[in-house]
């Protein structure tokens, strides 16, 4: 095992007294992570107090905690399995200490939710589960603890399991495992216990080793929030940490919100004789110099010209509130997003969410430890991404007086993602939101982008899919290559530039339809990967690329419009597949090979994909939640 892997961060959450610290203490013991003498020391302390051995004391190093019997703050302790190193964050279950749990859980890659087999799912079990989801955590294992108190009964375990799985599913979380555990005695911690012969899943350590490590955000668009500008010597160095994407010397950076741009002249570094870097990626704290002395200051966000952050005076966010005073409409707070600070006013509280039962309430205020959906308006334009598109630029904290009083994740808003050229335009928000439209239609809006060679079957398939969806009551339309060239794009030819503009217009139009709640199917050759990626970038979560992967031989054999024959005869310049390139998608959402298959088979496959992806489930329609 290499020692150069960063440890995986695990958070352990759950209701007070359900045994989180005990579980952690036991895990440390089982993996040999406790310093010499620690177990003896805790045994000594317990003996002195005339109580049975308490694993939780290993974690609860503070005197005050031992007296109160609860964990006060998030502690970080390390251990290692054969698979990899871990940092385990022991978070408190006491309601008063929610901020500490957030402080721990926000940095975690995966979580263990501990539930007392005897008491079952309690308020904080649900609250913590919900907050983990809100913080962006998707890998959660459940430990049903204190199985010894229910005689390792399978029936009781299944009861508790059903209850927690139902709750987690309702918020969109699929627990990786639900494990019956007796942390005090060590059952199912490191190995499968004899007391639970009916349980065939992994132990707690096995479940941990099954979590996937978080990936660096290199593949997202470049975001470099400016942290500071230094002038220690003749160099003017712009310092910051690359939150996502990559940059290299020579790249043109655009700074939001000013829209000013300059090229990277150098990447600066100090420390010995290492070769000067020419490129850097996500996670690196860098210093760069620019070829032009444009105005740059802390809080601006640098990106590459083609894929900048959204810019808006208003934000819609889901937030958790930690303030002693309630959040109210009309209140002002300082909003900190990456290195930027904005003064924002609460313009609406759309709903207050009871994390106990996930019921929505109309509310004029948001109390301590509550979760809500809130609209803000800022005096200055805020550069941001939605949390789904880029978590690091899609989250913020709120400050009141001197204290951080809440945190939130930014929802996707219709009409976001402004071009820098139109940076002085403020996005106007619709009164009808995406959720409302989806509920009314029974399905979400989105773009199903068919790409493939001429004659691959894009139009044939899309027209039939449209017909069938329409018969089912869907809001659906097809944008077809030949058809738009009669109108929207009648001024464009087939050069690479014109093809790019054609696709840009169609992409914008398709997304407008999608935002209006429609399912849009497009049928364009769209041969260039970069053009399609740009359309994806308009709203990545709404864009689904489908490769109609018919081979050139087959297309040429079909040749429905006689175009291949014409192209082979030199009658068409720049014909895709013959004299112009076709760049197939690298990772399409769906690939439809049509060679040797009937049109009906291809139609059926695409319909299955669309219904699975865009239709609202009965529960979603009932609860109106989780869009």
């Amino acid at each position: 095992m290499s020692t150069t892997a960063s440890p995986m961060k695990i958070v352990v959450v759950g209701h007070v007294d359900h045994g989180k610290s005990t579980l952690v203490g036991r895990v440390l013991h089982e993996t040999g992570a406790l310093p010499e003498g620690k177990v003896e020391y805790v045994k000594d302390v317990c003996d002195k107090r005339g109580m049975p051995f308490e694993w939780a004391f290993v974690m609860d190093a503070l005197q005050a905690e031992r007296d109160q019997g609860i964990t006060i703050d998030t502690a970080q302790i390390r251990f290692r399995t054969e698979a990899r190193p871990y940092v385990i964050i022991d978070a408190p279950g006491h309601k008063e200490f929610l901020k500490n749990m957030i402080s721990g859980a926000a940095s975690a890659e995966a979580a263990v939710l501990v539930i007392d087999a005897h008491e079952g799912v309690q308020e904080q079990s649900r609250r913590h589960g919900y907050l983990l989801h809100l913080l962006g955590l998707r890998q959660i294992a459940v430990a049903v603890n204190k199985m010894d108190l229910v005689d390792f009964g399978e029936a009781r375990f299944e009861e508790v399991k059903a209850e927690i799985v139902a709750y987690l599913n309702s918020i969109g979380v699929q627990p990786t495992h639900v494990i019956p555990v007796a942390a005090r005695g060590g059952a199912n911690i490191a190995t499968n216990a004899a007391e639970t012969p009916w349980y065939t899943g992994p132990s707690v350590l096995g479940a941990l080793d099954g979590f996937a490590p978080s990936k660096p955000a290199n593949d997202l668009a470049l975001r470099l929030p400016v942290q500071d500008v230094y002038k220690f010597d003749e160099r003017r160095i712009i310092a910051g940490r690359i939150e996502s994407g990559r940059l290299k010397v020579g790249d043109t950076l655009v700074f939001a919100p000013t829209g000013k741009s300059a090229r990277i002249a150098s990447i600066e570094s100090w420390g010995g004789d290492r070769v000067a870097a020419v490129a850097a990626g996500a996670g690196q704290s860098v210093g760069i110099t620019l070829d032009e002395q444009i105005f740059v200051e802390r809080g601006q966000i640098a990106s590459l010209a083609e894929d900048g952050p959204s810019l808006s005076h208003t934000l819609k966010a889901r937030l958790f509130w930690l303030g002693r005073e309630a959040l109210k409409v009309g209140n002002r707070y300082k909003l900190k997003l990456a290195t930027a600070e904005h003064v924002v006013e609460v313009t609406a509280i759309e709903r207050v969410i009871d994390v106990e039962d996930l019921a929505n309430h109309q509310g004029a205020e948001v109390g301590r430890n509550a979760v809500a959906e809130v609209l803000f308006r800022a005096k200055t334009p805020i550069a941001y991404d939605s949390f789904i598109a880029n978590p690091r630029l899609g989250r913020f904290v709120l400050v009141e007086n001197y204290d951080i009083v809440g945190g939130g994740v930014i929802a996707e808003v219709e009409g976001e993602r402004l071009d820098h050229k139109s940076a002085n335009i403020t996005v106007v928000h619709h009164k009808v939101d995406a959720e409302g439209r989806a509920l009314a239609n029974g399905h979400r809006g989105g773009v199903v982008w068919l790409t493939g060679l001429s004659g691959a079957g894009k139009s044939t398939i899309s027209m039939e899919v449209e017909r069938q969806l329409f018969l089912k009551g869907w809001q659906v339309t097809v944008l077809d290559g030949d058809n738009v060239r009669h109108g929207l794009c009648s001024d464009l030819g087939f050069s690479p530039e014109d093809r790019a503009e054609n696709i840009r217009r169609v992409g914008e139009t398709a997304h407008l339809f999608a935002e209006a709640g429609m399912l849009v199917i497009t049928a364009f050759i769209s041969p260039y990967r970069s053009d399609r990626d740009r359309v994806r970038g308009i709203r990545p979560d709404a864009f689904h690329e489908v490769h109609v992967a018919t081979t050139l031989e087959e297309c040429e054999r079909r040749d429905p419009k006689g175009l291949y024959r014409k192209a082979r005869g030199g009658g068409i310049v720049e014909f895709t597949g013959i004299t112009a390139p076709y760049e197939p998608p690298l990772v399409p959402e769906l690939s439809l090979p049509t060679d040797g298959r009937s049109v009906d088979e291809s139609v059926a496959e695409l319909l299955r994909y669309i219904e699975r992806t865009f239709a609202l489930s009965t529960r979603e329609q009932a609860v109106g939640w989780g869009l």
Partner: protein
Amino acid sequence: MTMNDLDALESQSVYILREAFNRLDKIAMLWSIGKDSNVMLWLARKAFFGHVPFPVVHVDTHHKIPEMIEFRDRVAKEWSLPLIIGENAAALAAGVGPHQGRVECCTALKTDGLKQVLAAHGFTGVIAGIRRDEEGTRAKERVFSPRTEEAGWDFKDQPPEFWDQFKTDFAPGTHLRIHPLLAWTEIDVWRYIQRESIPVVDIYFAKNGRRYRSLGCAPCTGSVASTASTVAEIIEELETTRVSERSGRAQDQESEDAFERLRAGGYM
């Protein structure tokens, strides 16, 4: 461009140092002369491209191991550090020492010595090289950790800290401790020293079967049995040991909560 764990730790520490430098008015860096604060000083030079743009403070208890003072003066000169040496002159004149009680001695010569030098220069923030893995109470620290005017630490009511958004707004009179090495472990520190060839006091290396693992004042700092005489050998030793790092520090072992009491009063 893939970052390994040391790259990630370095980048995070650099980010914290730059936040502290940007957000706080008057800061200083504590230099205990130990391995951690040497690494921290090195990271500052990385963060600020060879410069150390704030004073480096060493609190001299006059009980330090002599090699440490020799090392301090040599490195400060070589690296042109803006060094400030503080001490609790009154306590030293009164002859305070560990014979009056270790916790009391630490409080007078280290904690009060520090408070005096901070007050004398008007520093509102000090950067300290503590790590979470050192000891239970340090595990609960924040990266940006506020202190009252009397340097008290209320560990029961710490500010929330997440998504690298630190508490950088304060009521007048608040002091701040900034901890850029909080996420590092002892072995990370040594691996980084090895990778970057950072100088350390040579009493860390074993002579006659013993070495120092944690440095402090001569009367209260014991050596541990070891044959590790190079950085590589220390790393190898740490990969297998289960003896805690501060086991040689006598003031921690005075009572069940000695270290916690020290810290609540302002000790690092």
